[in-house]
């Protein structure tokens, strides 16, 4: 894009006066939605409008962890669909998404946490997702670098082991989907900001972008952490979302020492070793809304302290880079996916917090079905924003790392 080489998704097209659907935000969810709209529903007159460049948001900043061991029966199947899609998409897009299903190990540091793990594992097994409870010794066999000493802040009691999860190369997913969508005729409009959504008599009629007006009967807002602000300021529709900045960082490259994604709710840390050898780690946010995407010394220090307690071999290793991105948190730690309510032709897919990478492809596929047919797919129904007024909040709050202004 910035060099002389053409991007994989071709040169920037002219913005047309009319599209059958306009998707606001050039992240993974909309790129996947656009791809499936074109591929499975024959809707090719579609634009993805992106204020900066595709992958600018969470799509290019996440720590690439994928898994399907969530807490509730509504959530697990959606994430399982997504996990099953990676190998399929790698073939279909003819693009190596570098799915490394190394498995996830969630450390438990108390008997109460072990009980919670048993509950999560039962849910997973009931829904056909492989997941096991391990005691401390078995965990150490899997991750020899772990410190089982009782003499740390949170001694390790055991873990929840989820073999089918792992890591996917997030940039590759952005590029692969963009290439796939563009090839099918989707216009990817970068440096194009959505500035208004026009409506008439309860129906969406168009989108105003920094390049001019587009008439369209269908609009999707799925702009990661920016979604709630866009929806509330362009349409006056408030959502149960708080936007926080989440931080991540990588160490210098090391010889192979971690073969799994290891995470800990008590330490507020997750980490994995990238194929380059760096330890990629993160999970902290300042618990007050902000759009800064800035990192703080406080959490770099915390991360170093926490990591070196349960992985003491990392003592003295240097952090090379740190970065931040936005996380749009809901009170029940589950996303909001809805459409044709309260406006016909208006769709939204947001509230993905710090866990919206792993689900992006399956969600995009379902949202495409929703947009094309007008019928909400069964899988997505529990995720309506109306669940808040119906007092049907989801129980994902018991998730492993819960960090919102609500707790």
């Amino acid at each position, binding site marked *: 894009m910035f060099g002389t080489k053409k991007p994989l998704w071709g040169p920037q097209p002219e913005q047309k006066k009319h599209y059958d659907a306009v998707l606001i935000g050039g992240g993974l969810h909309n790129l996947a939605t656009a791809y499936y709209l074109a591929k499975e529903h024959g809707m090719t007159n579609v634009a993805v409008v992106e204020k900066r460049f595709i992958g600018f948001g969470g799509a290019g900043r996440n720590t690439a962890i994928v898994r399907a061991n969530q807490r509730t029966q509504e959530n697990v199947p959606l994430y399982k669909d997504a996990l099953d899609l990676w190998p399929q998409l790698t073939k279909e897009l003819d693009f190596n998404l570098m799915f490394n299903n190394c498995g996830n190990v969630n450390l438990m540091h108390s008997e109460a946490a072990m009980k919670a793990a048993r509950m999560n594992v039962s849910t997973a097994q009931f829904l056909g997702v492989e997941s096991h409870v391990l005691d401390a010794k078995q965990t150490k066999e899997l991750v020899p670098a772990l410190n089982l000493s009782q003499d740390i802040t949170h001694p390790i009691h055991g873990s929840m082991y989820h073999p089918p999860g792992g890591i996917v190369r997030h940039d590759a997913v952005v590029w692969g989907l963009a290439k796939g969508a563009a090839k099918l005729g989707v216009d990817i409009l970068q440096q194009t900001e959505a500035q208004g959504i026009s409506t008439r008599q309860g129906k969406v009629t168009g989108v105003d972008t920094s390049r001019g007006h587009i008439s369209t009967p269908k609009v999707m807002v799925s702009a990661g952490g920016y979604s*709630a602000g866009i929806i509330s300021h362009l349409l006056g529709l*408030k959502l149960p979302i708080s936007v926080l900045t989440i931080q991540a960082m990588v160490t210098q490259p090391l010889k192979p020492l971690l073969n799994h994604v290891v995470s800990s709710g008590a330490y507020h840390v997750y980490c994995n070793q990238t194929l380059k050898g760096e330890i990629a780690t993160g999970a902290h946010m*300042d618990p*007050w*809304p902000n759009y*800064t995407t800035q990192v703080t010394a406080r959490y770099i220090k915390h991360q170093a302290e926490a990591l070196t307690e349960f992985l003491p071999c990392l003592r003295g290793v240097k952090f090379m880079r740190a970065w931040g991105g936005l996380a749009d948190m809901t009170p029940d730690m589950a996303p909001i996916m809805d459409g044709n309510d309260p406006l016909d032709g208006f769709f939204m897919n947001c509230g993905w917090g710090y866990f919206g990478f792993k689900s992006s492809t399956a969600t995009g596929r379902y949202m495409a079905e929703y947009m094309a047919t007008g019928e909400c797919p069964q899988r997505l129904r529990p995720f309506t924003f109306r669940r808040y007024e119906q007092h049907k909040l989801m129980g994902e709050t018991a998730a492993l790392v819960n960090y919102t202004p609500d707790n």
Partner: protein
Amino acid sequence: MALMITCPVCGRRNGYEFRYGGEDKGAYPWGQDMDPRQWAEYVHMNSCTAGVQKEWWYHRDGCGSWFTIFRDTVANVEVENPEERT
């Protein structure tokens, strides 16, 4: 960036001493006959302003006061009441 917050009792202190208490949504709707939608609106829904908003804070590691301030959520700094600025 380090956030500093002005407590009406203790003065300007490090932001980590405080707990965020949500966007200011006006007076608590005592005694009003609210339907579940209005209640959800009051309890859960946010404007998510990228810019200056009025919000609640609690001086958790201090005097325990609840109070409101104005803060720019993009720069993450406390600001003056924009209406009082001339």
